């Protein structure tokens, strides 16, 4: 984990409201594990003080990239920044996905929104190729499919409006795949909480392990403020643990889904 002022190498629109930001950040790039994130301070924001967390999409030697959606003031301000400009990054942060060992489980990835980007490094570093199930409202919500195919993964897309892939929710082809049977599979999921909850239920039903990456509002990003907590079962009941530190990736069985938001 380092805090650094880093330079923007490129910051281009990917699809629709999604942008890809690439930063010159060798120390962060080298240390990044799949599922980790960076905490960015966006200089043009002045009366909005806090950093914004973004999953690390790619980490190649000297550079790291994130795929982000413009949803509010921070991401919109970020989208206006140009190559050569600087911002402050803290990273890599958080506890990421467990990369399957060679000859280990076959990974089934379930992604919504930026979740697809958050799991790319996992796919890239997994010795076993697997399937990625990706869902979105419409075609533009399906991100970086090409990148996954390029590394030999199968992508099964669903859209709610049927404008691309199968029509419906991402959990439908997942359930179909799990019903087909097969051993030694493991789920990895990143997306909206409703999707994570559904994946957790499916994992329980089919008795497959699942690692899920929680998306909680963050403040410090490094474990000091206790903003980003999720309820995690313990021997004696449950306690709040930090998405930014113990997470974002948790074993789905440990999350107390009943009271998770």
């Amino acid at each position, binding site marked *: 984990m380092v805090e650094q002022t880093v330079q923007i190498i490129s910051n281009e629109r990917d699809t629709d409201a999604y942008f890809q930001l690439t930063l010159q950040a060798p120390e962060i790039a080298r240390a990044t594990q799949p599922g980790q994130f960076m905490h960015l301070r966006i200089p043009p924001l002045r*009366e*909005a003080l806090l*950093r914004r967390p973004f999953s690390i999409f790619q980490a190649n030697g000297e550079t790291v990239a994130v795929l982000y959606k413009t949803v509010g003031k921070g991401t919109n301000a970020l989208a206006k920044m140009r190559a050569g400009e600087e911002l*402050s990054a803290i990273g890599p942060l958080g506890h990421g996905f467990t990369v399957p060992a060679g000859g280990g489980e076959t990974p089934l990835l379930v992604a919504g929104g930026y979740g697809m980007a958050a799991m790319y490094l996992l796919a890239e570093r997994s010795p076993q190729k697997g399937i990625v199930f990706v869902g979105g409202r419409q075609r533009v919500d399906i991100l970086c499919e090409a990148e996954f195919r390029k590394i030999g993964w199968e992508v099964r897309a669903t859209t709610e409006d049927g404008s691309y892939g199968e029509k419906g929710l991402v959990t439908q082809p997942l359930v179909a795949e799990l019903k087909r049977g097969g051993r030694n599979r493991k789920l990895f999921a990143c997306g909206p909480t409703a999707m994570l909850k559904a994946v957790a239920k499916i994992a329980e039903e089919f008795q497959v392990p699942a690692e899920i990456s929680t998306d909680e*509002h963050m403040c410090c990003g490094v474990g*000091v403020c206790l*903003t980003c907590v999720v309820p995690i079962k313990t021997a004696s009941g449950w306690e709040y643990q930090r998405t930014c530190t113990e997470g974002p990736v948790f074993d789905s069985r440990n999350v107390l889904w009943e009271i998770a*938001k």
Partner: protein
Amino acid sequence: MNLSVSIGKLTLQNPVMVASGTFGYGAEYARLLDLNQLGAVVVKGIRLTPVRGNPTPRTAEVTSGMLNAIGLQGPGVDGFIEKYWPFLKSLRVPAVINIWGTTVEEYAEVARRFDAVGGVGALELNVSCPNIKEGGAQFGTDPKLLAAVVAACRKATTLPLITKLSPNVTSIVPYALAAEAEGSDALSITNSFPAMAIDIESRRPKLANVTGGLTGPCIKPIAIKLIWDARRAVKIPIIGMGGIQSAADAVEFMLAGANAVAVGTANFYEPQTALAVIAGIRDYLQWHNIENIHDLVGAVRLS
């Protein structure tokens, strides 16, 4: 150049601390900065027993500040001593333990427990957390209850006691005087301000707790005024906080009457802030030919 500051029997190498609840238990930031450069590390509030804290969302960003309603999540005295004390003890700078309770007796008991630990720098009595139903705030908005808490803790420990006052009062003077009279070695001013924000699309409060505490640069001018008021009432040192993000801010607090300062919310967005503040204070003193930092305290010019 003399930057050192005394709080009771405790001497700080410089006047810049980090504020309770914004620096975890110290270890988290140790990878980003050298904690041994700080004046002191102040940890998140601890009561006798573990506390789960409030549901989420617990913080929300607002204009030039933030709201929080963490609800004092914490490991309790035993959990703290087991998990976090060994690291804090290993630091060369003092650790200040922020403590609270739901009764006067609990405050005193927590104080007694930390007295027994050995090596604690000071205790900061949090009588002003707006985010918990019982305990906290009510002790900070009733001078008699405040006096009782300070007196009980004073009996329970010989550690330096810092009373952290609530800003949510018409005049801070009676509270500052009560704490001083009951043997508090110093005051911390200020805690967060009761506040609220509503998301107009969902129509829900931005905090699950509905209301929370406002902190950050937005509150600085109110904090400066509180310190100015308290400074003219008491002789004990004041630790000033509320929106400090630069050395200029810290100097402003000192001119208003703070002997030391703490960086809070700014840690969240710029973890190096406290170190930058120390360096900047040095530059300011040098530039203005001031040998002893104490000469800044309350040195606002009025004529």
